[in-house]
């Protein structure tokens, strides 16, 4: 049953990812991206990290993709033209994509993951909270500071574009 579920989730992720790069319509590409990201949440469920799966739904399924869809639907992005790419361009894309894939696969195989004994240890929700807010509190605070700066910067840029003075 688990294997069948994994096959299903993996199929959703891969078909979604292929759809993102192959769809001619940009809005379709964004919808495929959402399907792929939701599939990743399924992978997290299989790895027994329900919290990460739900956060994936909440952040990537919700907040991030809504920005993408808003930008695409409000700005009248034209669909890609039906045009065969140049042979050199095609070769370059193949080399870059294939090289990246090979690199990732070697990296996954050669890394010695800590505490890897072939079984899935379910991590408690409270453990994640303790790690995030006690042990790694400083990196967490730095990350939120960076996000705050980005937020204020976005507001400043948006206000200047509308011709208002600060």
């Amino acid at each position, binding site marked *: 049953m688990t*294997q069948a579920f994994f096959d299903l989730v993996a199929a959703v992720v891969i078909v979604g990812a292929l759809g993102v790069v192959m769809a001619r319509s940009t809005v379709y590409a964004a919808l495929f991206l959402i399907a792929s990201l939701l599939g990743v949440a399924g992978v997290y469920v299989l790895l027994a990290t329900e919290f990460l799966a739900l956060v994936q739904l909440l952040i990537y399924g919700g907040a991030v993709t809504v920005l993408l*869809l808003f930008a695409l639907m409000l700005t009248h992005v034209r669909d890609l033209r039906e045009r065969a790419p140049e042979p050199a361009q095609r070769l370059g894309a193949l080399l870059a994509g294939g090289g990246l894939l090979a690199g990732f696969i070697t990296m996954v195989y050669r890394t010695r993951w800590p505490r890897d004994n072939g079984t899935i240890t379910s991590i408690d929700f409270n453990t994640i909270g303790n790690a995030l807010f006690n042990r790694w509190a400083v990196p967490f605070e730095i990350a939120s500071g960076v996000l705050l700066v980005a937020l204020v910067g976005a507001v400043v840029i948006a206000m200047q574009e509308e011709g208002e003075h600060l």
Partner: protein
Amino acid sequence: MSIELLAAPLIDLPQRWMAALLAIIALTLVMTFAVMFATYYERKVVARMQQRLGPMRTGPYGIMQAFADTVKLVAKEDLRPATADPVAFELAVFAIFVPAFIALVAVPFTEDWIISPMPLSLLFLLAVSGLSFIGFLMAGWGSDSKYALLGGMRAAAQLISYEIPLILAMIGIVMVTSSVNVGDIIIFQDKVPLIVWQPLGFLIFLTASVAELERQPFDIPTGESEVAGGVFIEYSGIRWSMFQLTSYVNMYVFALLGAFVFLGGWEWPFGRDIGWGYQLFLTLAKMSLFIVFYLWSRTSFPRLRVDQLMSYAWKVLIPFALLQIFLNGLVLVYDLPDIVLLITSGAAALAMVALVYRAVRVTPRVPLKMVSNTMPARSVV
């Protein structure tokens, strides 16, 4: 993965999977009938509040009206505009419909009546019900109509913005109960329901849930006088009824969530001592309180303007939700008595009500003109 799992047949449903499947089918049917009743009930209650009779012709007191409506809607032709995007238009219904019903999986109707007990059920409910905006955007973009696109944009913007105060109010609850499981949160309230200790959080939840449901006065995405029905404009027949079904199912889900988290759910008072029948009664009675509130607010408040919508979320609800979290933190860290929470949170709730009342009652300094020479109201959608 081990060899045994690979060798297992593809379709090998164990008993608990069958039980879950049957429970989901039963729940879907029950919810469909509950929604049919809700449409009748809504028309009757709203009619009462407007000194009308409501549906009276079909059956005694119009009780068969919902069945007649259902037959009419299902039999109606399912139209699609010629220029609409076929895939997005047809699939949008399911992108809204499925998350609403999936959320019901984690709803504990009584102590034992739950399809899938999970340790993070509160987060699950919020995360899954937050996915419906994809369907609204697909419907708005796929319909190839300006009104539908505007309505879809408004719906998505509103859903995403009001999710923030909703989740912040829930974080306050999670801090106090130190659990993300709805069942544990309900058992935590066996003495006193949480509305007593978190009145500010309750107010924020109530407001944000009306906005999440896109009901009046937050029906900006579907406002007839502005966007002529919004995303529903091009839909008819069975697809339109599925949209309506979903919005009522969402109403039930949020009413249940409020009943569980703030009113003590099936536990308060004496739920576990008496039995499941009484627990079911408690759940449904508290859920009905919320539903009556949603209907009442529909007939009582005028619709917000689209620029007021965002400033209300960002300048009123979110700061007050953060204040509630801060108060909870103070009480937890310094181990203050619970009564401090009641007084401070209650005072903040009163302050929020006073602030909104003042903003509503203020008289415009300049008399309203038909053509304004001041800056027009700024809004994105």
